[in-house]
């Protein structure tokens, strides 16, 4: 029942509009993106978008299929030989774009590179300890402890050619602190469906099809011309005039215009990312007329804030009806989700007022609400509408809004009473991500995003145990239980899964749009 539900939701997230096969001809996809990629070196900058783009050139040992399930890629099969040792059988006959063969040495060199101390993506492979070559096409991965999410992590660990790295002195990731440019910043050599032809930062990056790709291509593209167009109205104009054929970022405020334009198709769905309000659980509020204690530590107050939110109204006004309201902290496709989590406590302003009165705040109180303008979809509108709704139950939220680069340090330092936080659980697509990074108490390397000092011993225990439990039948219920504890205690105020809007010209017939919001143009077909 549970997994059936997940599968249905995942399937619904895929939009395949027409399946009419077309003859193979020269097809150029013009991709107008909201931002440029940071580098062509996948281990350079912690950006999901850049990785999604570079996945067209580089590949991992495994990848996600159309249902976000793990599928073999450069590895054909794998087995757990000991709880901490995984053996991977590599695909034979795969060639890098420079003609070199893909072997176990390449895997080892890539794992070393990504897990080096100066690699910004080291955190994407937390359990890695060592890798050993068994033969040319077999490699053993040794881990720090029994760890169930290795495959999930490996979807984003792209494989380099060792000889190419050695020849170009790029075995280590580029270290920004040293200030020396690396070869891989400007050049790419993967095994993927496309090759990098040219790149001009902020202007155009061109990919051409790799005729020697090991997999049978489902796409019929010969070329991808990627152009960042940061200004939203310019991007919309470019799509309407046909200067671009695809964008992964159609601005919500222009959707109507795009939908009414001939030859433009808007593709709407919701993301994996769940947006919620995180609360200050410390001894005192940061900015409030209640000086001696923290009202948010009282569950009744948290429930009042929760039930004071008229989510239907917020969805309609702030998100143009495109988000998916939820009571859960994770999206339905993510392991750990159960349908009963999705049920929200109903909006009830009278009850909220009564709860506040019971807690000793019949006239409400004031607090600070820290939001950014560019972290999440329509974040500022979300915060404004929440502040207005809370004002109606007597809680005066002083909205402090600004760009993410300025607001994030405040969040990290805990200088907020309520703040927005969104979690996609990428790249692992598993509830363990939010449990260990957000909900866990700040201990050791866990709880990096535990900004407000929340936490619960039982959640910590379940999270730690699930980290070493290899059996999904046992592991997933542990995570669900931990999420349920947070839900029952109203540790967070969940809001919604945020909308995503892609748009294409009519000649782009098939586009696979999954809830991780990553374009996969090796599955795109054009007329």
């Amino acid at each position, binding site marked *: 029942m549970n997994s059936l539900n997940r599968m249905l939701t995942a399937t619904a997230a895929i939009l395949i509009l027409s399946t009419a096969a077309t003859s193979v001809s020269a097809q150029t996809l013009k991709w107008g993106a909201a931002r440029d990629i940071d580098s062509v070196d996948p281990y350079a*900058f912690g950006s999901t978008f850049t990785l999604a783009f570079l996945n067209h050139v580089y590949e991992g040992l495994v990848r996600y299929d159309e249902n976000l399930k793990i599928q073999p890629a450069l590895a054909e099969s794998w087995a757990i030989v000991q709880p901490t040792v995984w053996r991977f059988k590599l695909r034979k006959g795969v060639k890098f774009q420079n003609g070199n063969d893909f072997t176990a040495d390449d895997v080892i060199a890539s794992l070393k590179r990504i897990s080096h101390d*100066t690699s910004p993506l080291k955190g994407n492979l937390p359990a890695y300890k060592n890798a050993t070559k068994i033969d040319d096409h077999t490699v053993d991965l040794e881990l720090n402890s029994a760890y169930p999410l290795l495959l999930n992590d490996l979807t984003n660990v792209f494989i380099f050619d060792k000889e190419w790295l050695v020849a170009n002195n790029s075995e280590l990731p580029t270290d920004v602190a040293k200030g020396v440019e690396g070869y891989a*910043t400007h050049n790419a050599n993967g095994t993927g469906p496309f090759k990098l032809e040219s790149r001009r930062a902020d202007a155009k990056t061109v990919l051409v099809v790799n005729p020697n790709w090991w997999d049978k291509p489902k796409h019929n593209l010969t070329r991808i011309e990627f*152009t960042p167009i940061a200004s939203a109205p310019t991007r919309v104009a470019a799509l309407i005039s046909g*200067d671009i054929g695809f964008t992964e970022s159609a601005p919500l405020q222009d959707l109507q215009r795009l939908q009414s334009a001939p030859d433009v198709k808007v593709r709407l769905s919701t993301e994996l990312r769940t947006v919620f309000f995180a609360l200050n659980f410390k001894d005192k509020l940061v900015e409030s007329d209640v000086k001696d204690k923290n009202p948010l530590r009282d569950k009744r107050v948290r429930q009042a804030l929760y039930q004071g939110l008229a989510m239907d109204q917020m969805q309609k006004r702030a998100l143009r009806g495109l988000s998916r309201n939820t009571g859960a902290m994770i999206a339905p496709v993510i392991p750990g989700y159960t349908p009963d989590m999705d049920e929200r406590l109903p909006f009830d302003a009278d009850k909220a007022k009564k709860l506040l009165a019971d807690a000793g705040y019949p006239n409400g109180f004031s607090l600070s609400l820290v939001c950014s303008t560019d972290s999440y979809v329509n974040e500022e509108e979300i915060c404004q509408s929440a502040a207005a709704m809370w004002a109606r139950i007597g809680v005066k939220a002083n909205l402090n809004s600004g760009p993410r*680069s300025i607001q*994030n*340090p405040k969040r990290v330092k805990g200088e907020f009473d309520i703040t927005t936080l969104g979690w996609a659980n990428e790249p*692992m697509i598993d509830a363990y991500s939010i449990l260990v990074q957000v909900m866990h108490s700040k201990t050791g390397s866990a709880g*990096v995003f535990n900004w407000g000092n929340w936490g619960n011993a039982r959640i910590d225990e379940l999270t730690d145990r699930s980290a070493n439990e290899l059996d999904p039948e046992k592991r997933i219920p542990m995570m669900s239980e931990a999420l349920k504890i947070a839900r029952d205690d109203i540790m967070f105020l969940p809001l919604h899964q945020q909308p995503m809007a892609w748009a294409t010209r009519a000649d782009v017939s098939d586009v696979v749009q999954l809830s991780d919001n990553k374009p996969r143009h090796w599955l795109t077909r054009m007329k």
Partner: protein
Amino acid sequence: MLAFILRRIANAAVVMLTVALIAFIIFRFIGDPVEMMLNEQATQMQRDALRERLGLNSSAVMQFAKFVTNAVQGDFGISYRNQQDVFTLIMERFPATLELVLVATILSLALGIPFGVITAIHRNSMLAQGLQFLSIVGISLPSFALGILLILVFSVQLGLLPGFGRGEVVDLGFWETGLLTTSGLKALILPSITLALFQITLVMRLVRAEMLETLRTDFIKFARARGLPNRIVHFRHALRNCLMPVITVTGMQIGNLIAFALITETVFQWPGMGLLFIQAVTFVDIPVMAAYLVIVSFIFVALNTVVDMLYVVIDPRLRTQSTAGGGHGA
């Protein structure tokens, strides 16, 4: 003259150092680059280690000192975001910005001067009134709004001109130019008009005011008394006497245009220095921001110096003054 140049170079160095110092003090308040560089999965230890390695834990003055020490050796470091050499990164973008600015400047002179003359000599005609009205629009319309308007009309409705980018460019080795290809020239039209509109109205108003002044002077009356045709009086005699302040203002405005082209560049996705800077601010890319500010302040000082030196060359009175009294401050 040599003393004058040396003094100006010393001046420039002080200005650049001051800009860099202020920049480093401001960088404290614009956010934490580490939060942008690492993704959600990074642990606290990795975050702290990176911050330490980048030297972000040291004081603003220490960071500034380190930056200056490296910069005088020609090393601006590499971008936090792109891992590319910052100086190369900025210099790659410089041609795009400079070409845009030069075309905008030429446009502003080519249109602003005749419009100014027309509005001065036919003060009450419909045409002059119309131009005057348009100049108010030009001064008050923000450039992003104008840019979007132009894109909607010429790119979306008429499909005549590209709405973004620089078109095909030709690499001359030291300079990538868009001036040698048809698509490059077409791509220049909308952004240069957007950038030039304010300049056009500025030049037009300047010329108009100067012309009205000049037309009242005695030598114009004498010229008319000699029976010279209007055309010669207006363009040969009057206009020539108006041009000096126009050239000065235009020269100084080039610096402004380079520094403030960033809005136009963002609207048109023009791959210039301004776009680079805006993105550096978004990603808290400190090396790029610091180098950009220093380079732009250098351009400002250099332009000022050139204009001052031209004065000295043109006007003998300034020459005696500068040898006697030590020049005049910028």
